């Protein structure tokens, strides 16, 4: 599905390789290449910066799906202590495509929940490539209810191509499971902090993605449909995914500008996987601060604010407000 090296980063990687070769030559002591190496390193650094600051939406999609990008459990293990994984939806199964459990952030209890992708084939099969079945969403819902009963804030990580499109998933009510979670999240009386760490794939993302604060990593994406899916439906041509990626406005920057997400968490040049701990540390701070701030609110106000936040999303033309009319008299435009 994805490659270890993206097209966009190959000039950089080539340059870095060259620099390394020069360094080896340099170490022999026969020629002094220090100045040249220094110059090349400056150049590499500029290149890096310019590449990653100017990624196209499609390049961001590729980066968001990068196989070396940290997955939920890496965030959990790095940012939290005392993670106690909990399993099962208490109805049908435990779905490995969603993980969850209690943990501590700065010593304070939280419930962490996230989509879980694998790093290699076997793990990816086990995790179903991060695509939950209904029981995954229901597990998440159960854990969120559990957290709310005990006043424990909820922290979720979004990283999924989407809900799994399978026969059994449909049989067991994929649509219902997603809807129930969204309804649930709209009214839970505890802070909910959401971070999109990779792919935010449609309803399968939103099913654990409604929150008081929604953060996105700099190179993550969040979309109503995959660019490939959009292209194949709109233009009957999946190869126009790049175009769709642009049209759908799926980057963190786009979504922040439009007020859909609350903040962007910057990534090191090259993406979070090049220096994950920098991001882990920064993100942990942001989340901890957000929780502290939100936990201070009366829970009714917290829920009301969350309601109003989503209530305001949408762009439309509104000719007359609060109108009520008899169709015969008024006609219909």
């Amino acid at each position: 599905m994805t490659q270890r090296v993206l097209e966009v980063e190959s000039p950089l990687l080539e340059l870095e390789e060259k620099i390394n070769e020069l360094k080896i030559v340099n170490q022999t002591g026969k020629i002094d290449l220090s100045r040249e190496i220094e110059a090349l390193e400056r150049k590499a650094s500029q290149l890096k910066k310019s590449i990653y600051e100017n990624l196209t939406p499609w390049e961001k999609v590729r980066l968001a799906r990068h196989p070396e990008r940290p997955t939920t459990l890496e965030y959990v293990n790095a940012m939290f202590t005392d993670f106690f994984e909990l399993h099962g939806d208490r109805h049908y199964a435990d779905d490995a495509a969603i993980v969850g459990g209690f943990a501590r952030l700065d010593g304070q209890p939280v419930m962490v929940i996230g989509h879980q992708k694998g790093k290699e084939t076997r793990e990816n099969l086990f995790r179903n490539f991060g695509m939950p079945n209904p029981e995954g969403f229901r597990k998440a819902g159960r854990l969120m209810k559990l957290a709310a009963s005990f006043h424990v804030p909820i922290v979720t990580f979004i990283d999924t191509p989407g809900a799994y499109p399978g026969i059994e998933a449909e049989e067991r009510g994929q649509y219902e499971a997603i809807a129930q979670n969204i309804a649930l999240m709209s009214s839970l009386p505890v802070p909910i902090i959401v971070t999109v760490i990779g792919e935010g794939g449609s309803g399968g993302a939103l099913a654990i993605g409604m929150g008081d604060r929604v953060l996105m990593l700099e190179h993550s994406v969040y979309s109503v449909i995959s660019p490939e899916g959009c292209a194949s439906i709109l233009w009957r041509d999946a190869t126009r995914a790049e175009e769709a990626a642009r049209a759908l406005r799926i980057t963190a920057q786009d979504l922040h500008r439009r007020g859909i997400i609350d903040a962007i968490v910057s990534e090191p040049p090259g993406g979070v996987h090049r220096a994950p701990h920098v991001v882990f540390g920064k993100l942990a701070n942001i989340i901890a601060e957000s929780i502290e701030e939100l936990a201070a609110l009366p829970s009714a106000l917290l829920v009301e604010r969350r309601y109003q936040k989503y209530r305001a999303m949408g762009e439309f033309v509104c000719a007359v407000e609060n109108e009520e009319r008899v169709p015969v008299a008024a006609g219909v435009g």
Partner: protein
Amino acid sequence: MSGFFDRLRSQRPKTTAQPGANASREIPDNLWVKCSRCHTAVFRKVFEEQFKVCDKCGYHHKLTAWERVSLLSDPDAFLEWDAGITPADPLQFGPDYQRKLEEDRQKTRLGDAVLSGRTLLANHPVALGVMDFAFRGGSMGSVVGEKITMLMERALSERLPTIVVTSSGGARMQEGIYSLMQMAKTSAARVRLQEAGLPYLVVLTDPTTAGVAASFAALGDVILAEPDAIIGFSGARVIEQTIRQKLPEGFQTSEFYLKHGFIDSVVPRKDLKSSLARLLGFLTRSGSVASVTE
């Protein structure tokens, strides 16, 4: 209830699109309609008396939003809400999208894929929302999300039961993330009805899938479905491509979801109004809902 299309005509003689226009296109002779499933030609009068249900094979042809309102509302009772809310093009998806919107506006005489208002259903005052598949496949963008939310918020403030009749292929791609967020917005509004003890009834009609299925459509206190409607999250084509096998017969139909526990009852169109009225009777006696005589 027979003659309800006549009533519809007399109610909105100048501005309404011809009811049954979709189905009739196939046969030039205006007296006859051809069933789009079994292809039997049916006398138009009979077809309309059966509410566009094929006499022969029982197929439930799609109704327009106004036809649906006529089917469910008591005569002259419907007051439209929020007709002034119409689509923007927030992502600037381009002239192609704008042109399609305009076409569908012409075709359906609707501002977007949902028509909402206050009405009486067998004397029960209700907030009623009906979707129209003919408008961009009933897809939910900002307007559908806003109008469904407004419907519920108005129901809340007026303490009315809410009924929504769904028909939608899902989110409106051309509005990107805004469409996705309508799932959150509408579901949140629905929860407020629940918290207020107000009934919310859903009727799933063909098709109800993806983003609409996975939000307000799935959250009814009671969920009815018309026979043989396609319901589900993922589209059949996507599933087939993923699992690389053919889908079983009857997959994702109303009857399939009845069997799998997600639908309370599959109700033929002719019984839909009376079924809803009976349910309202069970759910609105507590005094917490506006009384019939209001």
